[in-house]
């Protein structure tokens, strides 16, 4: 591959008896160097992390009776996270005779519209999102819904993570059975 350019470029006649010194080209074949360069690039691409991981803040409430918040029924939206990335929600408080009307299921794609719709229809002072995670829901679900809160610019203090009640657990498992989610 190495190219030896020995053309001395036109007959430049020197005087008689002067021997022509062979001019060696200064050109070097760069192919191996390019190979090496790309090899190093691939090495760096594989061993390094491009995107720096970010940190999300978590603020937990204090668990004491004094700071128990009373939420207005009209302003409350409860979001329940089930298994298989399923999301359930209801407004206000669950009433025994209206369960099937109140308790609805949705997905992570649609939940944002519902959150925004609730935010627009409710005075900010009454607004409260209650997030409850099922035992079968994943860490990703819990983070996604908190992320959704910050995407929708819900001010802190207007959403809270709460433990699930047995009624809701039963409702979720019944809905899952009906929808065939395993």
């Amino acid at each position, binding site marked *: *591959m190495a*190219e030896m350019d020995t053309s001395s470029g036109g007959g430049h006649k020197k005087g008689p008896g002067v021997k022509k010194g062979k001019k060696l080209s200064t050109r070097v*074949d*760069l*192919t191996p*160097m*390019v190979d090496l*360069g*790309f090899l*190093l*690039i691939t090495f*760096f*691409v594989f*061993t*390094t*992390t*491009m*995107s*720096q*991981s*970010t*940190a*999300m*803040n*978590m*603020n*937990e*409430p*204090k*668990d004491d009776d004094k700071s128990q918040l009373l939420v207005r029924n009209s302003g409350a939206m409860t979001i329940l*996270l089930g298994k298989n990335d399923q999301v359930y929600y209801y407004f206000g408080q669950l009433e025994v005779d209206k369960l099937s009307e109140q308790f609805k299921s949705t997905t992570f794609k649609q939940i*944002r519209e519902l959150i*925004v719709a609730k935010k627009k229809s409710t005075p900010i002072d009454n607004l409260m999102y209650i997030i409850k*995670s*099922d*035992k*079968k*829901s*994943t*860490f*990703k*679900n*819990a*983070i*996604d819904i*908190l*992320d959704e809160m*910050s*995407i*929708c*610019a819900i001010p802190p203090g207007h959403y809270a993570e709460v433990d699930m009640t047995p009624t809701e657990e039963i409702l979720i498992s019944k809905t899952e059975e009906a929808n065939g989610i395993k």
Partner: protein
Amino acid sequence: MPKVKIPRKSTNIDMTAMCDVAFLLLSFFILATKQKPPEVLTVTPPASVSSKAAPDKSILITLTQDGKTFLMLGDETRKAAILSNINTTKGLNLTPAELNKWVKSPFVGQPLNQIKSSLNASVVTPPNKLPGIPTDSTNNEMIDWIRSVTSAYAGTDQRKLQEMLLVKGDQSTLYPVFKNIKQAFKKNEIYKFRIVTSGESVPAGSELYLNPPKAIN
């Protein structure tokens, strides 16, 4: 008919330009990326729109896919203090030599009662075979760990400590594991900590996109 003479051209290409490009890319990657920090186990964290970078020096709790919990004490200046604190408070009876050995290990991934034996073991257990720190509601050793961490950092800037407390979980970790960790923080009166996520851009058209906050605390 006279043949048309096609001048024979050399197939050699000047590689200088290509070489320049290769090394330019190389230098870009070296400068723009960061070496992967040693990881206990590979976890894929969930995405969030948070734009704050995770600190390098941290007390990192890792939740793996199968629900095991690992603790990494990234702040070398306090690591020995934390470990000797848990040694005395939990009565692990480690000798100074064992304690020294423990300080050198990159992370904790076993129940407290197995630590002495694992330090004296001749064969090092690979990280994916370690049992993890138990975090069940009946035996949540993470509470003891965080207590030792807070006591080692007592008297220092608590805001700095809060910034260092990180939880990194896999996407498919089940929620109860995370709940136990939150419980452990709460038991030690720590109400603020941070979660390691992979960055994600704010969806266009959302409220956060239209009115980005001026300063995030």
